[in-house]
């Protein structure tokens, strides 16, 4: 990927965040529709998006509350779905500055923002990093909130009017992940590891345990990486 340009950090962040709109807005509209159908008002659905701001777990929480599940169980399941976030922050630390703003900005650390930040932050000057993160996460957060509100007010008629857009726009997310991951396909070990991870996630997500797809596939990938690494090391020690 090209090095970050001469734009200000905030502007660069906003530009880098634009591809997220294609994925975030249709999903947020769906969330707004489902939350209203489940008995939440548009304001309540929007506030959930403001404060929880974690896609899949919001759907799960709303569905469980609507189904009359015990609230403690709904909260536990919500946190279980979000537990994958614990590896995101530490992976960004080597690229962060000493600014005190980072902990506050972590509310915006979604899957997609992590993927973007993990690739972009190492390329940015230290002076631009906080502003870049503010720009990219504001685009994502505001689009998620706006999408939820639109979904609550007029989502059903919108998706009925433009069903093709509803199906096409979400492709922005896999396209973005592919671009972010492409530089990692640099050697045989990483190629094999990434292909195993992608395939495992795809297969698991097609089954009934969709929410387990990301952490489980990542663990399978890690196992592949270690098996290949130890195989290479063994081969090297034999050669010596």
């Amino acid at each position, binding site marked *: *990927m*090209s090095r970050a340009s001469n734009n200000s950090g905030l502007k660069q962040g906003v*530009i*880098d965040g*634009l*591809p997220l709109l*294609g994925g975030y807005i249709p999903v947020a509209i769906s969330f707004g529709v489902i939350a209203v159908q489940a008995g*939440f008002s548009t304001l309540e659905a929007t506030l*959930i998006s403001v404060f*929880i701001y974690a896609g899949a777990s919001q759907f799960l*929480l709303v569905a469980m*509350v609507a189904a009359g599940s015990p609230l403690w169980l709904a*909260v536990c399941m*919500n*946190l279980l779905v979000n537990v994958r*976030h*614990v*590896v995101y*922050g*530490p*992976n960004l*630390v*080597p690229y962060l500055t000493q600014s005190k703003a*980072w902990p506050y900005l*972590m*509310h915006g650390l979604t*899957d997609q923002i992590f*993927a973007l930040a993990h690739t972009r932050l190492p390329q940015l000057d230290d002076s631009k990093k906080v502003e870049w993160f503010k720009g990219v996460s504001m685009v994502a957060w505001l689009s998620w909130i706006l999408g939820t509100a639109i979904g609550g007010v007029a989502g059903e008629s919108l998706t009925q009017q433009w069903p*093709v857009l509803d*199906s*096409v*726009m*979400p*492709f*922005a*997310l*896999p*396209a*973005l*992940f*592919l*671009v*972010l*991951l492409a530089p990692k396909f640099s050697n045989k070990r990483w190629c094999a590891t*990434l292909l195993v*991870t*992608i*395939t*495992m*996630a*795809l297969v698991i*997500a097609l089954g009934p345990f*969709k929410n387990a*797809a*990301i952490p489980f*596939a*990542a663990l399978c*990938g*890690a196992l592949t*990486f270690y098996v290949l690494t130890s195989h290479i090391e063994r081969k090297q020690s034999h050669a010596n």
Partner: protein
Amino acid sequence: MQTETWIAITVAAIGTYALRVGPLLWTQRHFNKHKADNTEARLPTWLSVLGPLMIAAMLGASLIPKAPSGASWVATAVGAFVTALVWRKYRSLGLPVFCGVLSFGLAFVLLA
């Protein structure tokens, strides 16, 4: 909405934020301690390997079309191929994503 439901949503929101910020603060403290001791801090290998793998897993899970059908799967393959091709040529972020979505949309409409 009932007060108990709001309490549950508040706990879920605080818990989600804690999952995002807690590990970051802990790792920052670990790095700062090494800095003060003039030693180099490094992430454990397993943790630094997990970063790209989480992105790969997100890619795999997000490849499933919203409305799975023969046409949408072929469109997904076309979109992924075009995205990779444009990235290879331009090594940028926005253009490959734009071309990928456009080609996915065209293939989806033509095949549906």
